[in-house]
């Protein structure tokens, strides 16, 4: 090939490329951070999977109002709760259509059978879809204790379903807004069972959501198109494409080059440059998470609240935000994040005051204290670099005469060993909320039942526990009051040093409109448009 031919070919290639990127009018391209594990959200626990399955394709009985953690109707138009708080009756929306695709054409609208099927398959070993893929363990359904909680699910009539519980549990409704509670088409499942292609339920999803599934090329591209008969109306964009791009620097280059419209999880160090770029808008919001240092309150001298308080006052949170979070975090004063209802903003954080902290320790007769601080070996949303965080704390504590030894284990081992009630040392860990309910933080992480499990502080305080147990039932207003009080007890007793909530950044092309950040961390394109 001579030089001229090569030049012509290259020119043609580059022209085609630039044309290809410019001509995508009403197609929204999302540079997602990873591949979905599958398309049946109940089988998995990863947010990346939910973004690709439950968010675009499925609906639930209830949903979280976009941009908040408030529970609002979705496929259920309304619901009633019995006086004893143990029966929840859902009235379904009529005329809701399932996606009609080239692999399935529905013959009927949504009804109670679909709701019952969607849960029955997760709890009933006789359901043909209970073990339809190898290793189906329904992790979220089990993780949220649904098998113990649900006594029965009854079809009252075609459009009414009743859940009977074994105990009153107000957060139950919020659980139904979670991804594992996505509603599947029983008709579709039956047709797959008849043809023997059961695993297609996890590969070719059919739902009632705003977008219908078109195709998935593993590790490369997922294609959806707007569902014309979506009950809330067709979406403003025609096509939604997920371009899977795992490296954050590459995602950023694609966004800058216009190869995608929206990208998640930018490198915190690059956020300022993105904000300065006039073609890019960067949205931000506090993540629904908390990073903390949990003392072992069963081991002296950490069984003394004043000692814990003194240590908390020695931690320079600002230094942690600057060095560990690089600006993508905010100091935490409560065990729940500020975007969650019942967050008690009137609580004052412990001041950073090493001198006072040292004096307090001496008052309690604690001198020459040496302790271990556990640092996680992995990056998490609530703690991007635990090792570095532990080093900052080590330096802070040394200023008040406390010697810190930093220890770490492999991640699975770390999670397991840190549960031990006789554990030596304070543990760096955190939590990301599942359903926006305060119970999901306060009871799961600090309740007496969780000692020896997720309650890494091994902290069982009667006053606190009574409040959160009482808050298991009642109206949201009544519950919020109890949780606010519980946060006061928490602050006084200081079982943790609350360190930070992350700040999530979401860069997008400036012509993208209508995007709402989800406090629960999902990425949802309902209502999103591209300005011409």
């Amino acid at each position, binding site marked *: 090939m001579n030089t001229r031919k090569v030049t012509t070919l290259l020119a043609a*290639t580059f022209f085609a490329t630039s044309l290809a990127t410019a001509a995508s009018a009403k197609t929204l391209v999302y540079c997602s951070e990873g591949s979905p594990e599958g398309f049946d959200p109940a089988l998995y626990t990863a947010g990346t999977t939910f973004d690709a399955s439950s968010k675009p394709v499925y609906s639930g009985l209830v949903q979280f109002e976009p941009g908040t953690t408030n529970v609002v109707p979705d496929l259920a138009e309304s619901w009633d709760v019995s006086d004893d708080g143990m029966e929840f009756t859902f009235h379904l929306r009529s005329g809701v259509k399932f996606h009609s695709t080239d692999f399935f054409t529905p013959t009927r609208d949504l009804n109670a059978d679909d709701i019952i099927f969607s849960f029955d398959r997760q709890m009933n070993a006789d359901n043909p879809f209970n073990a339809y893929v190898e290793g189906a363990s329904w992790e979220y359904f089990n993780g949220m204790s649904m098998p113990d909680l649900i006594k029965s699910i009854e079809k009252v009539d075609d459009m009414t379903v009743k859940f009977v519980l074994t105990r009153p549990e107000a957060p139950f409704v919020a659980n139904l807004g979670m991804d594992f509670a996505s509603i599947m088409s029983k008709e579709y499942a039956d047709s797959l069972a008849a043809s023997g292609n059961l695993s297609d339920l996890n590969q070719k999803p059919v739902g009632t959501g705003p977008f219908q599934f078109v195709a998935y*090329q593993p590790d490369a591209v997922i294609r959806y198109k707007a569902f014309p008969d979506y009950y809330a109306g067709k979406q403003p964009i025609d096509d939604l494409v997920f371009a899977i791009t795992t490296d954050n620097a590459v995602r950023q280059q694609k966004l800058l080059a216009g190869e995608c419209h929206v990208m998640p999880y930018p490198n915190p160090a690059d956020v300022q440059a993105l904000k300065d770029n006039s073609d890019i808008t960067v949205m931000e919001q506090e993540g629904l998470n908390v990073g903390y240092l949990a003392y072992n309150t069963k081991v002296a001298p950490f069984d003394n609240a004043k000692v814990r308080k003194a240590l908390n006052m020695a931690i320079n949170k600002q230094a942690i935000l600057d060095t560990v979070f690089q600006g993508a975090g905010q100091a935490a004063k409560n065990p729940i994040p500020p975007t969650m209802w019942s967050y008690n903003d009137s609580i004052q954080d412990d001041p950073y005051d090493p001198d006072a902290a040292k004096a307090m320790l001496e008052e309690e007769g604690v001198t020459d204290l040496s302790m271990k601080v556990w640092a996680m070996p992995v990056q998490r949303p609530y703690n991007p670099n635990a090792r570095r965080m532990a080093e900052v704390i080590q330096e802070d504590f040394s200023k008040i005469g406390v010697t810190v030894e930093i220890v770490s284990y492999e991640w*699975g081992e770390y999670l397991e060993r840190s549960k031990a009630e006789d554990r030596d040392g304070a543990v760096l860990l955190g939590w990301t909320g599942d359903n926006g309910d305060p119970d999901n933080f306060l009871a799961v992480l600090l309740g007496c039942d969780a000692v020896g499990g997720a309650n890494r502080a091994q902290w069982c305080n009667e006053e606190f526990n009574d409040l959160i147990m009482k808050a298991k039932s009642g109206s949201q207003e009544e519950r919020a009051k109890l949780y606010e009080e519980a946060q006061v007890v928490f602050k006084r007793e200081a079982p943790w040093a609350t360190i930070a909530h992350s700040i999530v950044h979401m860069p997008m092309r400036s012509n993208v409109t209508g995007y709402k950040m989800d406090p629960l961390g999902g990425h949802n394109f309902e209502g999103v448009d591209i300005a011409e």
Partner: protein
Amino acid sequence: MLRFFLYRLALVIPTFIGVSIVAFAFIRLLPGDPILLLAGERGLTPERYEQLQALYGFDKPLVVQYFDYVIGVLQGDLGSSLVTKRPVLQEFFALFPATLELSICAIILAVAIGIPAGVFAAVKRGSWFDQSIMGVALTGYSMPIFWWGLLLIIFFSGFLGWTPVSGRISLLYYFEPVTGFMLIDSLLSGQKGAFTSAVSHLILPTIVLATIPLAVIARQTRSAMLEVLGEDYVRTAKSKGLAPKRIIGLHALRNALIPVITTIGLQVGVLMTGAILTETIFSWPGIGKWMIDSVGKRDYAVVQGGLLLIASVIMIVNLAVDVLYGFINPRIRR
């Protein structure tokens, strides 16, 4: 020749058994329990943990697990991924063509540039040309792939806007994969511009993946040529008055190629390791990225199955190289 082939083939069997043991043991030797990792901060009750152990068969003794695994492999069943719950073999074959396509392009580029560069460097030994070629080769050999890939993206895609940043083809084109090779499928699709789009997406990852093999091939060709050029028969050819082109191209290069072919065969393993990083940078949906993700999640079935399949590919290539070598150099066949 047949005996030679059968002998080489027989050597594959113990290697395969060895690989299956290493693959099985390797991922289990790493600290980290896949069930605990799947549960994350949420954790599990001891009863639930036992249930899951039984579900995945981890409660059985290791020897029993190994034999279950081998029996499965012999029946063509490599198990299902713990994470995606899909069969390992199905995942592998969906992703392997992408890796193969990229590797083939990279090796063609490495050979097409590496051999001529090595030959010229040897012929012009000691000249500025030789020194700069070998300097560039050394730099290429020492280049951290991740950094190199990102640098090319920032310059060619970001700054100049000549090539796409990542992926295999522009998202505008959509067709069902037929062969899994994007260059072929894009031609088969008949969609205008699809082929050029596929080519443009291949340029940067091919350059990045070819860099190290190219450097190795160029250096190997140079040293092999230098050795051959000093041989008596080359001097004889020169004294007979043969044209230098003919001496280098016909007499010297042919003999120098023998060690070069071995080197090229060995580069297949290098390509597989290089593919892991290259695929991650360029969001290339191949098996490299798949394996890395699976090691992180301790996805036993994928790691052991993937290692076994990759090792099989390398064994097949090496077998082919051995046989090819036998054709070129009759002395080996004995």
